[in-house]
């Protein structure tokens, strides 16, 4: 297993390298000029040109690339062209809201969706099954921002139980953190509950028809033990895959939810950087995101071995 992990980590290095080259070139080919954002609407062409020179944007692309990649290899993602703040610092400021929201969403989704999916499979064709599947379709269909606004209207505006917006770090206390994280978590969970519940139902349904489940039942094992120990564990591989990719998607930014609840996460950081053509920030974000995807995929693969002893690397 250790050898496998080392091989996977080493294999990630060329992947990251290709991502770095691709992103760098793509950004330089996209129309846009950070100097224009800095200079503002009244700047003359000469002033724009002078700012471009001072930012090093007139250097040949290969020179810019090697300067940037040299810094990245030393752990320096550069400085924002627009705000002059180090990219690492900007990402550091934004990572906590994103990670908090991703974790709370994925935990809530698993806690709700997995039992729902198992029950729906167990009661296949019943009203309970149909109810769960209908709710699942609803969860997929309603746009996230609509759910967000409805929750804000009910719990923040009408009932005044929770704040409308914002984020408080856990370091400022559990309740301030929780009261601001609850609505965005609920909002985002709708779609993930729908997704995981459907996947769990389908996977468990497949397994329930297997011979070993029939054997377990024939041996008189209690139904809950059949479902949890025999069916769910064997159905877990596809469910874990969905949870893993869902988590990666949440980490890489949920810009609509972040906007509706005014959460200063990395989704908004990325979108703002793209709109301003803030190259170092975009490059840093994409490198970080691709690294996270590699890591999460690795963790999913490791999880397979823990859940299914037949899988060995």
């Amino acid at each position, binding site marked *: 297993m250790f050898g496998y992990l080392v091989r996977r980590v080493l294999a990630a290095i060329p992947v990251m390298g290709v991502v770095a080259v691709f992103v760098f070139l793509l950004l330089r080919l996209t*129309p*846009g*000029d950070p100097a*224009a*954002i*800095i*200079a*503002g*609407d*009244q*700047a*003359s*062409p*000469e*002033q*724009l040109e*002078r*700012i471009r*020179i*001072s930012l090093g944007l007139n250097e040949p692309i290969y020179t810019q690339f090697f300067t940037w990649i040299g810094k990245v290899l030393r752990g320096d993602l550069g400085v*924002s062209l*627009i*705000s*002059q*703040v180090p990219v690492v610092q*900007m990402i550091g*400021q*934004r990572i906590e809201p994103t990670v908090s929201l991703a*974790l709370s969403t994925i935990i809530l989704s698993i806690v709700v969706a997995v039992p729902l999916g198992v029950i729906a499979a167990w009661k296949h064709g019943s009203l309970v099954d149909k109810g769960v599947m209908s709710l699942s379709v609803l969860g997929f269909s309603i746009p996230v921002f609509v759910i967000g*606004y409805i929750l*804000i209207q009910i719990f*923040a*505006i009408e009932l*005044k139980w929770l*704040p*409308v*917006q*914002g984020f408080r770090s*856990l*370091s*400022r*206390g*559990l309740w301030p*953190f929780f009261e601001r994280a609850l609505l965005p978590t609920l909002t985002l969970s709708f779609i993930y509950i729908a997704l995981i519940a459907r996947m769990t139902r389908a996977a468990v349904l497949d397994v329930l028809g297997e011979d070993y489940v029939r054997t377990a039942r024939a041996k008189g094992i209690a139904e809950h033990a059949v479902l949890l120990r025999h069916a769910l564990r064997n159905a877990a591989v596809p469910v874990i895959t969905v949870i893993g990719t869902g988590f990666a998607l949440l980490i890489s930014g949920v810009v609509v939810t972040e*906007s*509706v*609840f*005014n959460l*200063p996460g990395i989704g*908004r*950081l990325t979108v*703002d950087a793209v*709109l*301003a*053509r803030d190259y170092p920030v975009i490059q840093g974000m994409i490198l970080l995101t691709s690294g996270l995807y590699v890591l999460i995929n690795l963790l999913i693969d490791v*999880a397979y071995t*823990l859940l299914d002893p037949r899988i060995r690397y």
Partner: protein
Amino acid sequence: MVDVVRVLRRWVCRPALLSGVAVSAAMTLSAAAEAKTLTAVMHSDLRVTDPIITTAYITRNHGYMIFDTLLALDEAFKVRPQMADWKVSDDRLTYTFTLRDGLKWHDGKPVTAEDCVASLKRWAARDGMGQKLMDMTASLTASDERTITLKLKEPYGLVLESIAKPSSIVPFMMPRRIAETPPDKAIGEQIGSGPFRFVQAEFQPGVKAVYEKNKDYVPRAEKASWAAGGKVVKVDRVEWITMPDAQTAVNALMSGEIDFIEQPPIDLLPILAASKEVKVHNTNALGYQTMGRMNFLHPPFDNPKIRRAALLALNQKDVLDALIGNPQYYRICGAMFVCGTPLETEVGAETLVRKTGMEEAKKLLAEAGYDGTPIVLMQPTDVGTLKAQPIVASQLLRAAGFKVDMQAMDWQTLVTRRASQKPPKEGGWNMFFTNWVGADVFNPLVNVSLNGRGRGAWFGWPDDPKLEAFRDAYSRAGSLDEQKTIARDLQAYAYEQAIYIPLGQYIVPSAWRTELTGVLDGPAPYFWNIDKAD
């Protein structure tokens, strides 16, 4: 698996561990919590913090928080002393500015005349009005610690108006070591002498900017009026919070989570106006001017008759109806130097304001021999206040006989393409639209669209010595009456040549909680003089 469980356990247990930390943190934070804090959502997030390198209004607003100015304009358009008083020699060639007592930078050092000279020079290298002032200046020196002497080559009527310029780029004063930063490189420190200090440690670009009351600031004794008079700070902290979603900002204001929204969208104003806890008021009487600009370098708009035909085809009402909708928030105004200023006149704008030019436009277009060259008209789809103008203009231009190629793009692409002087087929353009704060166009020198220096002029690049002659004459005018006459003639000429097309004036009211009192009017939002009830 064990590791995963351990990590999970660490996360689950973390809040419990943190609760201890939270108690001590809460004690530390209690001081901040007790501070009187004003939370505002501004029109944009602060990213560039150097108010000299950029003309962005959010950075100008940031500049007003932490920097001060030598002079300032009041609501009657009169220049008033701020950091300095002044004297003018009898021959009108020497201006002597004397710094007032008690001026200190945020690092505790005294403000000196040398700091101000360096600041003026850096500002003048970036600002059009500043460049003009320096063209007329023989010397700008610090005579002693508190005296700045400006000697002119010849009498120039706009010395004080230049130094009291209220909008981008405002001549803010900085310590010499900062002001000596090259004008095309952003400053590294945020040290001013203004009424607030910038809290660098809490600055998160795109999230929030925090300002604390500068307890060493000595305000002037006069009543505050625009950026002039006493800048008395009545709150301990001001936090600018970025909220990308306007509906969220409105909800937050109504629930009391924030105190002030600089520019709520027009369509959400009725919700705010209906709330008893919120006041909606326009603080910027001059508002904004929306305008169209043609490219003078390439066909068909290199032909003055065709430019004029385009101007005749457009009208302000159709544009403003599409852009703003509610007439309560817009004004049909043909004045290039905006309505509500001493230079207001509608000469030359008759067809724009009366919507009577279409037939003449068709006739003129035929006379000019327009060959059907398509007009590349750029439409920014991601800026709410710039989306409608290109659509209306395209329709009206087509009705007059133009062939229009309206190209949708994001604002970033537009500003990049706008800088290209190549023909439209090679990535250039023919027409675009933008908006100006009234104070940025309210006289012939600050109005960059009237610069006629060809390829060195503002985008569109009109090469028109007569325009420059008008601007020179205006800068030398000795009285307001003379200035008015020149401005009137300049406007008539600019309309005749279709230098640019003013498409009306609109306002964007601000909204704030009724707990706030003392919100000042002005071309920029000011946060001094505002008090917040407990």
